[in-house]
């Protein structure tokens, strides 16, 4: 009987244990904001949280896969903003809607390819490479727009498909997020690429000795991050009908915080898509909750930092208790 229980217990993926921490934090935040203001659990507020979750989640979920393979991408915020501005400029030129979406995603893939190639071929640290790309893209964006937002006047089917209102304040972006979670969960847990990503982060020497093309695996993950960051940028543009050159500033840190809160090990080899999406939900709840309780805007960053620190301490303790001492 004991053996049976042990065997069943072992079948539960240990990578899910840190999600308990982020789920607990989410419940606490919900209770605190719910207690302070009765608006927090209203449908419109929840819809707003889901909309923001979708934009952060679309970035942090593939980023979690990249972190699991032991790399980083700090250029996601700039890619996010650039893709939105690109989409707005192209739509204003009356380019076919779906060509606009394709162009934005291809742009994201190109950025991912540049990041991935520099990291894997030149063996440069991803932190520095993507920091450089982040500044280059942000600078170019300001040059192109002269610092002004690019707006799109009129209606377009693409804007509805990306982020139109479904019912009440609930938007299409939430459906895109769910599809994104399912897709990346499947990739990580049920495909050879996911297995190889875990191996690249867990022990790159063993992965190479087992014949895994580690550079190719990481390059693909960079490309996926680029593609979805660009897609998230298009979601944001579709929400406002306007693209700001400063949009997505600080998003890279929010996305990394969400992935880490969700249980991704910063040195790679460990983490879940489910956890990362809960991390995105936590950050979005915090953002909306602070606005509702009337906290000054400047407090938001401080709270994210605080939650990140508390979350990481809880995660570490859970990992130590349940996963084993090596984490």
């Amino acid at each position: 009987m004991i053996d049976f229980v042990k065997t069943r217990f072992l079948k539960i993926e240990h990578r899910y244990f840190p999600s308990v921490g982020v789920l607990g934090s989410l419940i606490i935040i919900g209770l605190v904001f719910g207690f302070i203001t009765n608006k927090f659990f209203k449908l419109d507020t929840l819809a707003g949280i889901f909309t923001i979750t979708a934009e952060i989640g679309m970035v942090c979920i593939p980023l979690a896969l990249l972190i699991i393979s032991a790399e980083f991408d700090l250029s996601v915020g700039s890619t996010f903003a650039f893709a939105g501005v690109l989409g707005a400029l192209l739509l204003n030129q009356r380019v076919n809607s779906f060509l606009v979406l394709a162009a934005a995603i291809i742009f994201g893939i190109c950025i991912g390819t540049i990041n991935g190639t520099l990291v894997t071929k030149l063996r440069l640290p991803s932190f520095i490479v993507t920091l450089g790309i982040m500044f280059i893209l942000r600078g170019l964006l300001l040059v192109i727009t002269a610092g002004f937002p690019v707006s799109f006047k009129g209606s377009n089917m693409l804007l509805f498909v990306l982020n139109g209102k479904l019912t009440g304040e609930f938007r299409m972006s939430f459906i895109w997020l769910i599809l994104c979670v399912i897709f990346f969960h499947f990739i990580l847990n049920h495909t050879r690429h996911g297995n190889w990503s875990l191996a690249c982060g867990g022990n790159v020497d063993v992965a190479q000795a087992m014949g895994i093309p580690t550079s190719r695996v990481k390059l693909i993950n960079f490309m996926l991050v680029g593609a979805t960051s660009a897609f998230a940028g298009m979601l944001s543009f579709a929400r406002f009908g306007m693209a700001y050159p400063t949009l997505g500033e600080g998003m890279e840190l929010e996305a990394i915080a969400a992935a880490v809160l969700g249980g991704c090990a910063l040195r790679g080899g460990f983490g879940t898509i489910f956890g990362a999406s809960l991390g995105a939900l936590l950050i979005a709840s915090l953002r909306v909750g602070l606005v509702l309780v009337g906290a000054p805007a400047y407090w938001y960053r401080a709270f994210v930092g605080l939650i990140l620190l508390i979350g990481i301490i809880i995660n570490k303790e859970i990992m130590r208790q349940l996963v084993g001492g090596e984490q």
Partner: protein
Amino acid sequence: MKEASRHPLLEIKNVKKTFGKVIALNNVSFALERGELVGLLGDNGAGKSTLIKLIMGIYEPDEGEIFFEGKSLRGLSPGQRRALGIETVPQGGAVVPYMDVARNFFLGREILKFRCLKILNLSKMHEESAKMIAEAGIRLRSTYERVNFLSGGERQAISIARTLYFKGKLMLLDEPTLNLSIKETDKLIDAINTAKNYKIGIIFVTHNVYHVFDIADKFVILNRGNLVGIYPKDMVTPNDLIMCIRTGNPL
């Protein structure tokens, strides 16, 4: 197949390797047959690890040749040598800590459901790895267990079971008993004996003569990159070998 079986499994001929002015290996030659276990002995700096890396394909010899089933390995990558059946079990085993046993067992050679979509057949991977691990005489609680819960000996035993499953022909064990308890060492020796029964040629690198003496068929002793001697087991005692390693002189 018949052509291959006429040659020794592995033949090392007059191999020399230098790193700058340091001569790591000098004119080393020996051969290994199928199902034979060679204890590769020597003190630190003897050239044991360099020789293993030459066979793996991490380094190429400066002079001399390494033949596997009669064919030169020169120019082949570690991956290509692995495809030929040369498997390495490094210290701590070739495993990734946070992945479960089955995922580790099939790492790089996963069983796929839909080959074009590269989807893992996880149930088959667990089933097959559990069967092979049990066949190799290794007792594990579950193939769902992550390998960082396993002992060093169990991790190495998984690598050995993997070699058996993928029909490896030559297994290179690099200091496999280092840091293992007595019980763990016994378990590992059992797994190595199982591998011998599968007619796998084995090179067992170690400092500890007693760990390899019972299971080896012959001993190759290196000292400062030079071959001291090749001794069949029935001609020597453990003390002879220890003396030979200590002095660096042939018996």
